[in-house]
């Protein structure tokens, strides 16, 4: 007899019903228009003169399967390099940024060194650094210094990218309002403690999207390792292509790279959207 409110589903008001109808309609329209545009695009492309040649040259199914089977194992090298490099870059770049942001007079030479480093490695093409380190250093035949090209390629990437990433960190540090630092010092924390417990945690959180952006860029740059000899994914695609004069292998390699970078790109977007709120609090309502 007495029906509790939870038993019956809530009745929608006419306004809510209308809103729901509108939402459904807009979804249908979006889907339909996407379908139409996609169909048109495909129709136009397939009818274009030269499509058959393009398809045979870039999108050949058999060549794709064949080259993919060769390229996928080679991609493991790229993955190894970017995982190791990224870990080192995140740490080294933070050290550089902290060095450049330091205010103590005693640390002046450190500040200058860090600035010189960043200027240098942002200005020199990564390729040159690769050659200098990858061929130049091993040629010196120094005791105890490895000549492994993968090692030196990774080092070259770390040295170059840290310069860029340190600027990202620095922007993050600068973006933390001075009042946070004041509050930290006021509570009795030393300069270092303020940096470590108050400024840096906020700074780093703020720059996660641009950091991820640089990480994504790094993943593509691992192809440069091939310049020093080791066969990574892009080189493997090139070898296949030069044997067969078909470019499908390049498309296959590109897809493998995208399979990693695209999910990361979406993750970056999601993080950006999520993180806004927290950084606004702590100040006046």
């Amino acid at each position: 007899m007495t029906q509790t409110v939870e038993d019956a589903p809530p009745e929608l008001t006419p306004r809510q019903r209308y809103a729901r109808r509108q939402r459904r309609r807009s979804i249908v329209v979006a889907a339909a228009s996407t379908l139409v545009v996609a169909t048109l695009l495909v129709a136009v492309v397939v009818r274009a003169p030269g499509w058959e040649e393009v398809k045979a040259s870039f999108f050949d199914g058999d060549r794709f399967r064949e080259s993919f089977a060769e390229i996928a194992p080679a991609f493991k090298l790229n993955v190894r390099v970017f995982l190791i490099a990224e870990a080192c870059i995140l740490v080294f770049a933070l050290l550089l940024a902290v060095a450049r942001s330091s205010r103590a007079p005693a640390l002046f030479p450190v500040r200058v060194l860090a600035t010189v480093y960043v200027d240098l490695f942002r200005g020199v093409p990564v390729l040159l650094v690769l050659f200098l380190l990858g061929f130049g250093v091993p040629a010196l035949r120094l005791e105890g210094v490895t000549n492994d090209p993968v090692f030196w390629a990774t080092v070259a990437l770390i040295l170059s990218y840290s310069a860029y990433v340190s600027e990202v960190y620095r922007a993050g540090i600068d973006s933390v309002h001075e009042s946070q630092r004041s509050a930290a010092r006021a509570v009795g924390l030393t300069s270092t403690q303020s940096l470590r417990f108050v400024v840096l945690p906020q700074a780093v959180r703020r720059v996660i999207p641009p950091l991820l952006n640089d990480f994504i860029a790094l993943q593509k740059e691992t192809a440069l390792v091939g310049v020093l000899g080791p066969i990574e994914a892009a080189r493997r695609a090139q070898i296949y292509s030069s044997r067969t004069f078909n470019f499908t292998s390049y498309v296959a390699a590109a897809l493998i790279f995208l399979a990693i970078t695209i999910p990361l790109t979406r993750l970056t977007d999601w993080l950006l959207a999520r993180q806004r709120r927290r950084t606004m609090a702590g100040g006046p309502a």
Partner: protein
Amino acid sequence: MTALTVEGVTKAFGTKTVLAGIDLRVADHEVVCLIGASGSGKSTLLRCIDLLEPIDEGQILLGDEDISAPGVDEDVVRRRLGIVFQGFNLFPHLSVLQNVTLGPRKALRVPRADAEARAHDLLARFGLGDKAGEHPDKLSGGQQQRVAIVRSLAMKPEVLLLDEITSALDPELIGEVLDVIRELRSAGMTMVLATHEMGFAREIADQVHFLDQGRIIESAPPAELFSTPKQERTRQFLQRILDARRL
């Protein structure tokens, strides 16, 4: 017995003189209010006392110690003073509890359990017991300011400096913050408050100083200063306040 002494302090930012010679004394357990228009130097004075800004001339003594002398370890001094800002300045990436325990744990090396216990006590005392796990963005302005006060208290300061702590709050939230100050006063906390809340100043201050253009124009117990100001400028200032119905 004198908790805080300020003697002949001047401070300029570039060519602009903000403090033109300040002398004041605060005795133990005394509550002193600084009033004056914006730009009169109240905030700067408090920041100078807390060594957040260097002074140009003069001396600041905390108890017997000259804290403005060159070579003083500022970090140690700041642990003896507490300061609460107009904008609260809570650490947004930490919970309320973490905000309060950060200072004691890292600067005073208090073990975590002890720091947290004291934090919980303080928070509960000021009606924030259930907010310990929240982040500042979930709190109202009044709650955030109370947390900011608790954060300073966690360091067991000898003197508490409060820089217009209600100016950024909606009117209905001011009361809860003033209640905290009242309680601290009864507990004997030595405090220096810069404030626009004249009624409150009248209520709790032992001494009121009126600042104008970097100088203390008049100092007197509140009953005297508010009813019978001796200086013309004090009178004008108070008249303006009255006209705006702030008293």
